[in-house]
């Protein structure tokens, strides 16, 4: 009989960003539990709100399939006494024994049947471990030090068909009673698998995350809301019954930079921003409540009041900060630590100025470097840390710095993520590159190398930014100029960028990086060429031939010898040599077409491993020459071809 299964782990509010990974983890572990223990059944669906993780499965049997194991006993020649002993050990009688023939003769044997475990008992035993094994970034204990979870577990629903799967975690017993929304629902609701979701719905809990998201989207579609998928995700997972409401603020706050307004709304209040018909910030916001309505407008009023206070603070900070220019703040940077082992931000700013010079930055770029960290001493950045750089740029603009200078400061933390754009101006790119270079090189110098998933100083992101700015910003810089301890690190980032961000094939990247990786712009150009010729019919055969050549040279332990054209035999061997010479000035793309038939013919007709050692060495040298012909573009022997796979 196929049984459905439902598990609900009821908790106090789980941080929104942890929910989806945990749910996936639960799903995977549950499926593995079934599969590894020979239970039929599939996880059908998972859902979560801040207060519950829910899993449905179907097709579970009432009991595990029985297993039959053939156990070999004593040799038949050992006699009936031995057989009786064996039978006793097996918990049976001698007449139930069988005999088997083996290469060593005839033996007693027994088919030991183990009945499958009752599913409900199995689940009751395994579920507590499974639930407590869900991975969380940080866990807590609340009444038993041995039991840790993201937040206290307050109820558990576990049903197999109509029956409760009985178990206990930290004093909470599983049952068939769930809990509704804190305000809209009842605190205790008896459920069956079939009516679970619907009863929760009637108690103010929209279990489906996509339904919650749709409810938010439907509620805001009449406004021009600034798209913000991350915030929408957060709002979906901090609510059980989301309802968006529109609030307003006084137009006069629009005099503040919209970056500041948006940061206050987004990061501090989790509000979506609203734009007017021209795409400018409108004096409105969308707050998403965790309840069904705001009949008296109290929630809107409350949120407007909070925002007003926040905006007043921001205005106050702005006015205060203007009393001292960025340039006048440079000295103050001496008391702001960049990193304990690496001195102050003043020291950093000076190093960055120097780097900008070396990268060919003009007066404006150098000035932007000098002022780039001064906003760290402003009240605005102390309050809204995410706005570092942006605030500096805005202040520089307000203080009459040239556009090139303020834009460079404004942009210099970019790109903040893979999706984020690089700085928009040349000066900004140089500044950003120099800043990241300094952070990376200085941190590596004092041994602060990222390990595993730990990268507290964001060095991977810095390195990734360097690669992107060089390639996408067309900044001429050879990474070979960086200190040796950073090379391996940078090489990984270059590879990651072209593979995961740009989507080049793994073998194309290996082939091209073998011919040099420290000049990412050049590498990009070569990758594009290889990607283009890869689709031409002659390419894969040539690539296989190259791999073959490489193997031959390796097997022959060939390390260079002088090549003598006069030792070449007329025919395919000489033809290949001539073809290599005559096509020397042709671009790679057409050379491949000309050379391919010659190479094929060579391997068809010519014995590399010639009896005469001089001839053999000369042929190997010819092949070596061929191999190095394209080595300034790529090592084609790294290309994975169809013939190979």
């Amino acid at each position, binding site marked *: 009989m196929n049984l459905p299964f439902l598990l609900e782990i009821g908790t106090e509010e789980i941080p929104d960003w942890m929910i989806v990974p945990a749910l996936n983890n639960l799903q995977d572990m549950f499926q593995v539990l079934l599969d590894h223990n020979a239970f039929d059944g599939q996880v059908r669906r998972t859902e979560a709100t801040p207060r519950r993780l829910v899993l449905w499965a179907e097709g579970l049997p009432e009991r595990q399939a029985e297993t039959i194991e053939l156990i070999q006993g004593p040799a038949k020649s050992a006699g009936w006494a031995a057989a009786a002993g064996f039978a006793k050990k097996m918990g049976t009688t001698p007449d139930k024994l069988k005999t088997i023939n083996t290469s060593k003769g005839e033996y007693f044997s027994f088919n030991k049947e183990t009945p499958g475990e009752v599913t409900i008992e199995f689940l009751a035993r395994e579920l507590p471990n499974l639930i407590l094994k869900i991975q969380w970034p940080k866990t807590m204990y609340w009444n038993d030090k041995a039991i840790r979870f993201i937040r206290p577990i307050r109820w558990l629903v576990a049903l197999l068909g109509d029956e409760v799967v009985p178990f206990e975690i930290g004093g909470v017993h599983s049952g068939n009673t769930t809990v509704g929304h804190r305000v809209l629902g009842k605190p205790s609701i008896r459920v069956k698998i079939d009516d679970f979701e619907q009863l929760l719905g009637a108690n103010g809990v929209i279990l489906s995350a996509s339904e919650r998201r749709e409810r938010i989207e439907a509620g805001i579609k009449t406004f021009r809301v600034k798209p913000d998928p991350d915030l929408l995700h957060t709002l979906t997972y901090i609510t059980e019954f989301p309802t968006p409401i529109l609030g307003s603020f006084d137009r006069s706050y629009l005099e503040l930079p919209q970056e500041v307004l948006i940061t206050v709304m987004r990061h501090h209040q989790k509000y979506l921003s609203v734009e007017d018909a021209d795409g400018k910030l409108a004096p409105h916001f969308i707050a998403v409540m965790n309840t069904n309505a705001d009949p008296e407008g109290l929630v809107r009023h409350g*949120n407007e009041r909070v925002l007003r206070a926040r905006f007043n603070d921001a205005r106050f900070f702005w006015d205060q900060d203007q009393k001292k220019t960025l340039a006048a703040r440079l000295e103050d940077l001496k008391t702001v630590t960049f990193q304990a082992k690496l001195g102050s931000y003043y020291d950093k700013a000076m190093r960055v100025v120097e780097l900008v010079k070396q990268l060919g930055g003009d007066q404006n770029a150098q000035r932007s470097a000098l002022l780039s960290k001064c906003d760290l001493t402003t009240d605005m950045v102390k309050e809204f840390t995410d706005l570092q750089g942006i605030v500096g740029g805005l202040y520089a603009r307000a203080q009459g710095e040239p556009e090139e200078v303020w834009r460079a400061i404004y942009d210099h933390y970019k790109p903040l993520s893979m999706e984020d754009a690089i700085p928009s101006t040349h000066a900004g790119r140089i500044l950003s590159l120099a800043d990241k270079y300094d952070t990376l090189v200085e941190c590596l110098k004092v041994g602060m190398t990222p390990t595993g998933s730990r990268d507290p100083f964001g060095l991977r992101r810095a390195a990734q930014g360097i690669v992107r700015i060089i390639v996408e910003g067309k900044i001429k810089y050879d990474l070979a100029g960086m200190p040796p301890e950073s090379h391996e690190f940078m090489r990984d980032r270059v590879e990651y960028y072209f593979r995961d961000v740009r989507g080049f094939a793994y073998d194309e990247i290996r082939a091209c990086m073998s011919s040099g990786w420290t000049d990412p712009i050049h590498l990009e150009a070569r990758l594009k060429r290889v990607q283009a010729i890869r689709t031409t019919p002659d390419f894969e055969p040539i690539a296989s031939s190259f791999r073959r050549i490489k193997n031959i040279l390796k097997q022959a332990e060939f390390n260079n010898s002088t090549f003598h054209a006069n030792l070449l035999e007329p025919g395919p061997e000489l033809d290949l040599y001539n073809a290599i010479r005559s096509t020397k000035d042709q671009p790679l793309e057409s050379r491949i077409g000309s050379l391919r038939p010659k190479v094929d013919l060579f391997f068809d007709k010519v014995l590399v491993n010639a009896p005469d050692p001089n001839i053999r060495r000369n042929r190997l040298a010819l092949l070596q020459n061929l191999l190095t012909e394209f080595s300034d573009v790529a090592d084609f022997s790294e290309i994975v071809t169809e013939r190979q796979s």
Partner: protein
Amino acid sequence: MSAPLTFQETVLRLKQYWSDRGCIIQEPYDVEVGAGTMAPETFLRVLGPDPYSVAYVQPSRRPADGRYGDNPNRLYKHQQLQVILKPAPADVIDQYLGSLQAIGIDLKKHDIKFEEDNWEAPTLGAWGIGWQVMLDGLEISQFTYFQQCGGFELDLVPAELTYGLERIVAFLQNVDSVYEIEWTRGVPYRSVRLLEEYQFSKYNFELADIGMLWQLFDLHEKECQRLLKIPDVVLPAYDQVLKCSHVFNLLDSRGAISVTERVGVIGRVRKLALAVATAWMKRSEAAA
């Protein structure tokens, strides 16, 4: 709709509410502290195996937050209502929500959310897991399950509920400035506290004698170290830690502590706090 509660009525209601639920109602601790957590009723009582539930208003002094009474929401000294429930009961959140109803917040007409906010106080060797409680977008409370205090993992996990009283009452009374809060009928917060905010801002930012403060820091530190060597004076020793901490905050608001010094001074306070916690634990072990 009935008139919203005054500041003092709100305090009284909350005290009554938690008194009805078995809490000891304490009076504020009479040494300067930056937060209710630092009062011995929390810092020391959460340690060890004995259950303890207590509620008290704690005036909390943060010299650097002073604004001479000019800022409608920032105060040098604000009032926290601090509740410790040790161990935390399973329905602790429902009890908390009940306390909001008790001060006139109809949850059916408002939006309440629990947003991740883990608390950490390195100077106290303490941290916990919890939320900031948001009411219509306003942070009204901190809710923390303590995990460690004074460097010790806790035997019984307490829930700490901290109500920001000025914020809550300004919200209930629908005023934009804390100074407009009605403290009791006809008496605004302004007339009770503005003078204090102004005078202490002046002292904290301009007048406090830096040389004297450094001397005081050293003296209180020495006194604490001396007391820690003597049995059965943990509580007086802890007072010295609190005095060091407050002097540190004053030096900070005077801009007298450079970044490099800062780490060192915090380390000194932390060392004292951990030593006091250790002494307290020894005492409770001996008693057991």
